[in-house]
């Protein structure tokens, strides 16, 4: 269960944007009941809604009581099958279907919506999953007009989000079939990480990332677009965007770092990575890269960290990279940092880094933080 205090950015926007809409089929997506009527009809306005939501980066799935092959063949016949990820077509409770979809996507229930023509089905889902928003079928044509289906940003990543998830499922399938140590499989992916200074164009990707990646946001602090934009031109700060690709295709923008330079110290104020790339060790790779760069610059690292129920893996990544609590292990380098005020639960982790191997499974292309005397974004 996610406690209310644990994830404030998401709770604060009461009408959080829907990340996945789960469709019933009979008399909701199409008109008619497949098993009874045989022939069903797809209204053109419904097709338009599916395509529009997809272009906004909202994933769509199916929870339907039908025979899977039969119903899926019908979706293929309508040319819509490719728009739906992780379809749940069978005879179980719809709340179970919706829960499985949310689990596999690693999405909080507050970001899932469900549309069904039958009040009893909506009530069943709402009873077991009170955070999932339910809509009646007659509301389908109006869904794109609702605020919760209108993400504030539209980026190259959101427009191809579905394809990125689908590539992800192919990766997972290959991974499940792969034998032997994980690392061998990871090497076979030809992972390439690129770390770059954020440009104005990339900022919307950053904004979206910090909004979406509640799980791996190490600080639990949301940096709005305007704040990050100001920091890009601030010579004391580095705003870095991380992208990842592999032989299946792009993962898109998967991470963001906000770093403030002090004499003898780099202060990592924000580190967020997408939960999609946790399995590739993206967080650990970033920390290793940063530690190595700091070591070569002769500075220490201090990272802000606030434990939530969802960023446990990030805490482990920090600790395994060698970070220790400033309280347990004080270091004089932190003397110049502003004290933590009004940020309950925020701790600081410290590392006196040495040179290290950044990654044994992926290549990393990154700017040299040392030659930054001319100011950020010089190139």
């Amino acid at each position, binding site marked *: 269960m996610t406690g209310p205090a644990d994830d404030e950015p998401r709770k604060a926007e009461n009408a959080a944007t829907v990340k996945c809409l789960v469709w019933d089929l009979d008399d909701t997506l199409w008109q008619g009941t497949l098993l009874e009527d045989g022939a069903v009809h797809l209204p053109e306005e419904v097709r338009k809604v599916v395509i529009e939501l997809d272009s906004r980066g909202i994933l769509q799935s199916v929870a339907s009581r039908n025979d899977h092959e039969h119903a899926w063949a019908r979706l293929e016949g309508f040319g819509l099958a490719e728009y739906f990820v992780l379809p749940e077509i069978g005879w179980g409770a719809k709340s179970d279907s919706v829960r499985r979809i949310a*689990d596999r996507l690693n999405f909080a229930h507050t970001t899932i919506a469900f549309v069904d023509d039958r009040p009893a089905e909506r009530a069943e889902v709402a009873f077991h999953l009170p955070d999932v928003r339910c809509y009646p079928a007659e509301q389908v044509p109006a869904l794109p007009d609702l605020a919760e289906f209108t993400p504030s940003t539209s980026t190259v990543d959101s427009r191809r989000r579905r394809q990125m998830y689908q590539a992800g499922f192919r990766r997972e399938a290959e991974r499940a079939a792969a*034998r*032997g*140590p*994980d*690392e061998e499989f*990871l090497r076979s992916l030809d992972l390439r990480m690129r770390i770059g200074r954020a440009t104005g164009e990339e900022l919307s990707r950053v904004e979206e990332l910090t909004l979406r990646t509640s799980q791996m946001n190490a600080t639990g602090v949301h940096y709005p677009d305007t704040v990050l934009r100001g920091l890009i031109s601030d010579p004391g700060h580095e705003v870095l965007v991380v992208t990842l690709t592999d032989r299946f295709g792009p993962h898109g923008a998967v991470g963001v770092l906000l770093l403030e330079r002090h004499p003898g110290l780099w202060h990592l104020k924000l580190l967020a990575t997408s939960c999609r790339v946790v*399995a*590739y*060790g993206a967080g*650990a790779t970033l920390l290793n890269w940063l530690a190595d760069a700091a070591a070569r610059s002769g500075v220490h690292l201090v990272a802000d960290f606030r434990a939530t129920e969802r960023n*446990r*893996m990030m*805490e*482990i*990544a920090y*600790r*395994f990279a*060698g970070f*220790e*609590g400033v309280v*347990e292990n004080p270091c004089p380098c932190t003397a110049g940092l502003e004290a933590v005020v009004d940020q309950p639960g925020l701790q600081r982790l410290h590392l006196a880094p040495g040179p290290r191997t950044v990654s*044994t*499974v992926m290549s990393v292309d990154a700017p040299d933080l040392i030659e930054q005397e001319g100011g950020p974004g010089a190139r």
Partner: protein
Amino acid sequence: MTTDSTPDTPDSPDINDLEKELLGFLEGHTGTPWDADTDLFGAGGLSSLFAMQVVVHLEKTYAIAVRGADLRLDNFRTVRRMVELVDRLRVPATGDLHG
């Protein structure tokens, strides 16, 4: 990703059972057998990423919380060290109400 493979654990398994269970977990995930004293993260070994999975597995299986300074990679370097860690953490600290 859920792991339904959590084995039945008696309330207070002794050290040998603990070691056996951990070696089984490692072998199940890597397809190769391991010794209790092998450096798991040395050359040709496991990724620190897998170490994260091990942490989560230990916490779930033995109802322990590995916090703060205990969360050092060194504590997970060999099966024997992990056994020591689990054994230490699962002993209830009487009188210590809040960490």
